[in-house]
């Protein structure tokens, strides 16, 4: 069995962004390093010993719930899956909240926008005549999308949301639902028994055209969902098929 060598008397310094509503600064917290320790363990240590009011979201601490998203040394990560021993501990470990969403306090941001987007997506619509049978291969295709744990790291890293702030719920011209919800739509569109169509939603309310396939979302996904290639590009193709294909425009939309 392979285990990391026990680390003795090592101390890491956490440099955590503290403050409210975008006004704040960094505070340092010394943390003794235990074998296999993850960043979230270190944050909990700081909470229990130095900063009882340090705000952080977390739930399962096992990479299953997607709550403890933050930027560790500038990179969007789940803190529960980021090991201290993979970070350079000579320098402080910098932890900042997700940048793409409004800051509330310390490491906590307001992600409620995502829940509003989710509510707008046309739901699953089963075929009326289905016998509810399909193969594992058919299931595999959508199960990839359904692995999403809604950590919103892909939303955080997406430049359309992060840099261009296309989050205007009142004006679809300035709204992009982001990779998370394109993955969700892909899970519905490619469900073997779904009879609905969400291409109009994608085109007119989802801002799918704003994605220019830089694949940053795919890189940060802790569930290794191939967001761009398997979800976004096929959806873009469906939108093109349904709205821009001259033959289809002449002969009507395909049945799906």
């Amino acid at each position: 069995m392979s285990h990391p060598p026990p680390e003795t008397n090592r101390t890491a310094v956490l440099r955590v962004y503290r403050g409210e509503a975008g006004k704040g600064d960094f505070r340092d917290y010394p943390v003794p390093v235990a074998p296999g320790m993850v960043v979230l363990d270190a944050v909990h240590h700081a909470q229990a010993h130095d900063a009882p009011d340090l705000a952080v979201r977390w739930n399962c601490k096992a990479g299953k719930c997607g709550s403890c998203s933050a930027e560790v040394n500038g990179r969007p990560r789940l803190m529960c899956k980021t090991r201290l021993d993979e970070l350079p501990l000579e320098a402080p470990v910098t932890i900042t909240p997700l940048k793409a969403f409004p800051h509330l306090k310390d490491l906590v941001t307001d992600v409620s926008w995502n829940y509003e987007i989710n509510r707008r997506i046309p739901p699953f619509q089963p075929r009326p005549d289905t016998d509810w049978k399909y193969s594992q291969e058919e299931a595999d295709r959508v199960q990839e999308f359904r692995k999403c744990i809604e950590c919103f790291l892909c939303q955080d890293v997406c430049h359309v949301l992060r840099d261009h702030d296309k989050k205007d719920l009142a004006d679809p011209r300035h709204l992009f639902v982001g990779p998370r919800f394109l993955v969700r739509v892909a899970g519905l569109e490619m469900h073997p028994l779904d009879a609905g169509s969400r291409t109009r939603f994608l085109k007119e309310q989802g801002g799918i055209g704003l994605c220019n396939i830089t694949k940053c979302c795919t890189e940060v996904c802790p569930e290794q969902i191939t967001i761009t290639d398997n979800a976004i590009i096929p959806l873009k193709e469906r939108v093109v098929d349904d709205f821009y294909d001259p033959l289809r425009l002449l002969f009507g939309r395909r049945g799906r």
Partner: protein
Amino acid sequence: MKHDTHEIDVLVVGAGGAGLRAAIEAAAAGARVGLVCKSLLGKAHTVMAEGGIAAALANVAAQDDWRTHFRDTMLGGKMLNNWRMAQLHAQEAPERVRELERWGAVFDRTPQGTILQRPFGGHTHPRLAHVGDRTGLEMIRTLQDRCVQSGVQVFMECTITHLLRDGARVAGAFGYWRESGRCVVFRARAVILATGGVGKAFEITSNSWEYTGDGHALAYEAGAELIDMEFMQFHPTGMVWPPGVKGILVTEAVRGEGGILRNSKGERFMEKYDPKRLDLSTRDIVARSIHTEVREGRGSPHGGVFLDITHKGADYIKRKLPSMYTQFLELADVDITRDPMEVGPTAHYMMGGVRVDAETAASTLPGLFAAGEVAGGMHGANRLGGNSLSDLLVFGRRAGLAAAEYARALPGVPALDPVQVDSAERALMAPFERPHGESPYDVHQALQKTMHALVGIFRTEKDLQSAIEELGRLKTRAARVRVEGSRLYNPGWHLARDLECMMLCSEAIARCALLRRESRGAHSRLDFPKTDEALGKVNNFARREGEQMKVGSSPLPGMPADLRRIVEEVKA
């Protein structure tokens, strides 16, 4: 102090499987429904469920039916289950699973294209509908999406601290927004508790921070009765190394898919403890067996035992147990396709909870309902794996339906008593007023150590008595904790409140455990190692009498002869 007030028909507290399913049903029945959760939507503990949903669909074993599922559940619960709940659960679970599929859930498939089912501990046939080892995620996402489409109002990151009453009935609930620290009042005709369990009272647990026994405590404080609190399930397989991940769940699906437990001598030790069912024995037995192997010096280097699935091959393991594969690779540097895991027991599930009516999930307090882990009775002395997710669906639905009916039949909106609101608010704010005091984190840690050492897998009268004394001291300490900082998203303050709930549940666990002078299911007394037939006919209860906790025994509901025959068929 100013607070928001929301008026609704049915308030659901908790947004895991039971809460979501209850909210969907209550809304479908025409009620205005509010759903409150401590975390963001979709993060509740259900999301961590791995192995599957037990339901006699008979897709894999054609001979399976509700009777067999009922029998397995009763035998697994050591006959202490509420028979009617076990019956309804077994009968209705298949339809609840098919319903999830109709709402968009994508389960793993059989070669015939139907929902695939896997074997699990204590289940006679392969019975667990599943999605690899992330069944809970599939379930919560399906319910969550259905719920928001049903017009349910969702209140995220809101903690309920007190139930409000109008005379003898429930009138709503009081709580606070985690984000702002402001108070909130929900006026409601009916309240459904779906708050889950209390694993966070223990040092080693698979449970998330939310699992602090809030619903148990809310019900108890409001005058409802708790039963079976001595039965805390220790899941046999949690991670034991490295220290930070201690307790994190290793799904029973590893054994369901063929994983084998071995001690340091390489022996398949379950041959000794349960030669018939081996590694797929019930959780109480496997947990005790592992504990015994470790105590007798046959443990693994980090104080667990080995769980080996390498013989199934890398492709199969990665397909059927993908999150176990990455969990061990990323957190413990172990490639489970090549090396065995190290595992040991972890506090996992509270069988005990609010005493409810089987048909309606109604508690003993009018207007208060409870479903899922916070409700007691369904699982008796030991829950079978997979029976939790099906429990959430079956009784979540029943609670939603009954609460909506209750709300509709109520002649008027229950009155709001400002005195209760004021006193709830004063209690909540008290830690800010204290100039000195301990950190709530220190008291929490002391509580976890006490429960682990004295009210764990094996119990004795002496330990339990020491635990009760120590809990008394901890209660005094908890009442004096001080919090720093503002009311804005302040985890120390949140913990100060959660501690009170954990403390109360811990006391109920210890007192009921002391009362049960036998070993049965998850409750093992070293001083009373045998099962006592007379005690198999009673539930222990705990309820508030003034400021005192009263515990006692009440007779189990009698099982009809036809059901008794079903259970005895196989026992013979």
